[in-house]
């Protein structure tokens, strides 16, 4: 395989993978397929596809200006390719945007519902108009292919006549939206990091777009010459290099002048943001400027490619930084620090691959360059011989077609097959099971921590209409404005008896206090009654509170840590009632808080009994 068809095979494979991944984006929505969050709603698709893409396509207007306005005819060899790149670039932007928008089928709303205050509205309109302009600029290349068709020839002639006005309008529109992409972020003074946030952001965006346009045209020229084994134009390359140096220096002066003027230079060496900044600056300015201006290597094609590519990378990185990565909220919340997901990168790569393939198509079939590349392999050199171990698929052209579609289909199929819908759908959901109430049927409570315990039967107490909430949660009665936590400072730490925090937090069960507590009653004396509501409420979720045939077969220590005391207080409260009616107890006046003082035997007896009856697997033992 020669270079170009190798490149094409890779692009077709990427396109196949992206196609399969792209489908998941529309089936499952943005949340599970991207790393976008409520904290960073804009990510790679906006930063790279849209902002990077628009800037990458800036080559179109820059070269058009040099060529047509400033009359540098010698740049002509690349002007068509630059305009084609811009045209395809903007289409890629639009396609990328369709993936990013939540409701892409509503994109036409921008034409109907107007909000001229919005920078995005302006960008949208400019891009739409400019896309049409680019189409007009490029149309002659397509039309001239059929000079014998009268109508087409007429249109061609007309377009040639209005060429200069079209180019000028194109430049005007480009100026606007290249800079307005920067204005988008003026609305985020509290989010965009101060190294990047500046009132002259639109100007910076415009200048860097020109830099990017120049370096991108270099990259594209060098890459296609390499792939099609074509000679570079040394004059063109040199002009681009020189203009790039000038523009990069202007950009550097603007960037650093602005940073120092605002006093943001104090932040240049602190924190994550500064690392991002210096990476960006090295790629954008340091590497290309060194390579472009060092004698000796600045004539070498490979070095030029490195320099130009580094410049492209740096400015795209700038767009990504401004677009979301260098936002204060993103940097501060390290837990959700945004980096693009596999899906996002794949789809962007797919969009770019598609654009590049179309670019190749035009290069091979239209006069984008002065002459079409001659691909030696496309010619049938000799009549193919049939051999037993080689299948003849047709001429090289046909073979290539078959090969590429094969690659596409296989890549698509394999990717599609390996995507698991349920995994994607459940991404980011913690399994929140309703925890089993761990009390079991019978609890053995060592209230006064003397090694002897009394048994406590859940079932029995339930039958006496005593509510779960009586023991498992309390509040300070008769108090309206004190936060529950003021007494129950342990409420938000995890207690074994009842995880209050989990029940109330929105990341857990998400219940309000008054799901269980009656807010009216909690004002007055009826407080204890108020949590009677809780009985049914607990059981709503904890259906298996009263373990019927559970298989707890281990002895475990379930100590009721933070609520132990509260619960013992409650035992006393209830048993006091019995005390009043039971004549023996009335006489003995026992210390109810120390149940096991008297009920020592209880422990031995009950536990033995339960063991004997093999009931212990239904109970929880507290040693």
């Amino acid at each position, binding site marked *: 395989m020669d270079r170009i068809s190798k490149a094409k095979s890779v692009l077709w494979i990427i396109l196949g993978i992206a196609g399969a991944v792209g489908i998941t984006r529309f089936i499952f929505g943005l*949340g599970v397929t991207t790393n976008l969050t409520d904290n960073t709603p804009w990510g790679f698709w906006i930063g790279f596809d849209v902002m990077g893409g628009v800037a990458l396509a800036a080559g179109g207007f820059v070269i058009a200006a040099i060529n047509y306005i*400033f009359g540098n005819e010698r740049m002509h060899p690349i002007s068509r390719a630059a305009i084609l790149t811009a045209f395809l670039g903007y289409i890629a932007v639009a396609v990328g945007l369709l993936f990013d*928008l939540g409701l892409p089928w509503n994109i036409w709303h921008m034409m109907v519902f107007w909000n001229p205050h919005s920078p995005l509205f302006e960008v949208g309109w400019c891009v739409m108009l400019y896309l049409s302009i680019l189409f007009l600029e490029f149309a002659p290349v397509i039309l001239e292919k059929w000079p014998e068709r009268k109508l087409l020839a007429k249109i061609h002639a007309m377009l040639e006549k209005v060429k200069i006005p079209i180019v000028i309008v194109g430049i005007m529109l480009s100026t606007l939206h290249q800079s307005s992409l920067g204005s988008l972020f003026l609305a*985020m003074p*509290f989010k965009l990091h101060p190294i990047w946030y500046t009132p002259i952001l639109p100007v910076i965006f415009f200048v860097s777009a020109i830099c990017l346009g120049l370096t991108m045209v270099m990259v594209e020229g060098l890459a296609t010459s390499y792939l099609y084994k074509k000679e570079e134009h040394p004059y063109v390359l040199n002009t681009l290099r020189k203009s790039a140096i000038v523009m990069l220096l202007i950009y550097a002066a603007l960037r650093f002048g602005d940073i120092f003027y605002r006093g943001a230079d104090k932040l240049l060496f602190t924190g994550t943001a500064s690392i991002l900044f210096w990476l960006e600056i090295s790629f954008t300015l340091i590497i290309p400027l060194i390579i472009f201006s060092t004698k000796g290597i600045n004539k070498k094609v490979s070095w030029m490619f490195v320099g130009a590519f580094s410049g492209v990378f740096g400015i795209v990185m700038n767009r990504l930084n401004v677009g979301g990565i260098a936002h204060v909220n993103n940097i501060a919340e390290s837990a959700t620090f945004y980096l693009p997901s596999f899906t996002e990168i794949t789809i962007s790569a797919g969009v770019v691959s598609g654009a590049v393939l179309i670019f190749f198509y035009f290069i091979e079939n239209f006069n984008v360059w002065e002459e079409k590349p001659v691909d030696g392999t496309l010619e049938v050199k000799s009549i193919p011989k049939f051999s037993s171990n080689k299948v003849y698929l047709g001429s090289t052209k046909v073979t290539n077609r078959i090969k590429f579609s094969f690659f596409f289909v296989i890549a698509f199929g394999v990717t599609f097959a390996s995507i698991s819908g349920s995994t994607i759908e459940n991404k980011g959901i913690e399994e929140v099971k309703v925890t089993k109430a761990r009390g079991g049927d019978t609890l053995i409570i060592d209230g006064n921590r003397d090694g002897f315990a009394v048994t406590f039967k859940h079932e029995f107490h339930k039958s006496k209409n005593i509510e779960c909430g009586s023991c498992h949660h309390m509040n300070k009665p008769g108090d309206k404005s004190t936060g*529950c936590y003021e007494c129950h400072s342990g409420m938000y730490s995890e207690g074994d008896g009842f995880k209050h925090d989990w029940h109330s937090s*929105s990341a857990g069960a998400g219940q309000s206090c008054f799901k269980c507590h009656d807010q009216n009653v909690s004002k007055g004396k009826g407080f204890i009654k108020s949590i009677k509501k809780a009985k049914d409420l607990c059981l709503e979720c904890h259906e298996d509170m009263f373990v019927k045939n559970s298989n707890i077969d281990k002895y475990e220590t379930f100590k009721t840590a933070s609520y132990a005391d509260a619960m013992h207080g409650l035992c006393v409260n209830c048993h006091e009632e019995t005390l009043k009616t039971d004549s023996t107890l009335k006489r003995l006046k026992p210390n109810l808080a120390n149940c096991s003082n008297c009920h020592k035997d209880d422990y031995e007896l009950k536990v033995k009994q339960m063991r004997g009856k093999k009931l212990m697997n239904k109970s929880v033992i507290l040693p």
Partner: protein
Amino acid sequence: MKAILTDVTKCIGCAACVTACKETNNLDKGKPREWQKSDGLSSDNWTSVLRKNDTYIRKQCRHCLEPACESVCPVGALHRTESGAVVYDEDKCLGCRYCMMACPYGIPRYEWDSPVPYIRKCIMCHDNIAAGIIDQPACTNICPTQATIYGNRDDLIKEAKRRIKSDPKYLDHIYGETEVGGTNVIYITSKDEKLDFLTYYTNRLGDPEKKYGYPDITQSIPETTKIAMKSVPPAFLGMGAIMTGAYWIVQRRMKIEKANKDANKVNNDKNNEVGNG
């Protein structure tokens, strides 16, 4: 203009407002997903109660007097009503999420898990109030301690000032009175718990205002893009003028050059002819 005053010192953190809001606005129970911020707001939670030491702070849309979300939405899906509530029209939205990026308080949330996602945020119960179903937002209505109350903005600011004067425990600042051009949801708090979550700026960078070229904290967000948006027509026309001018000059020069060349050529030819002759 209607507003909500939340007195942080009175909130007991019962989250009744959260549940009431969910009920009134038919919000889903929701599951904790990884794209949610730690502040409890999500497309299913339009208000949340944050705990900070021993204080609870309710978070919701501030209903700015000059909302950033309204000014940046390219299709005008968000707009401020006469009552002061900032509401959302999902039929217009195209899901660009610019509003989420631009809101200084980070309020609008997205239905990330849906293939047809919409923006969600507190709308001050505007629909229900306008329809006469309720006469005040569900959250203020249910609050057991009147920590959050509803009323005319002027009255509430007066009330807030009265409270600050009457009790030394209060911090002498009404959050939302002037921030980002003023908001309809205002807060007062005690001296021990200054609120910093109100803006990312003071919160995250911890630097005094007006440094590094940041705009004033009281400047409204629409103001920040105004200059850039205003210079759009002049920039557009200016660029056109420059390009046309440049083209004209360059062409003229080329013509002159060409004429010179032609003249030279003619001369040369003549000379040659003369020479030949």
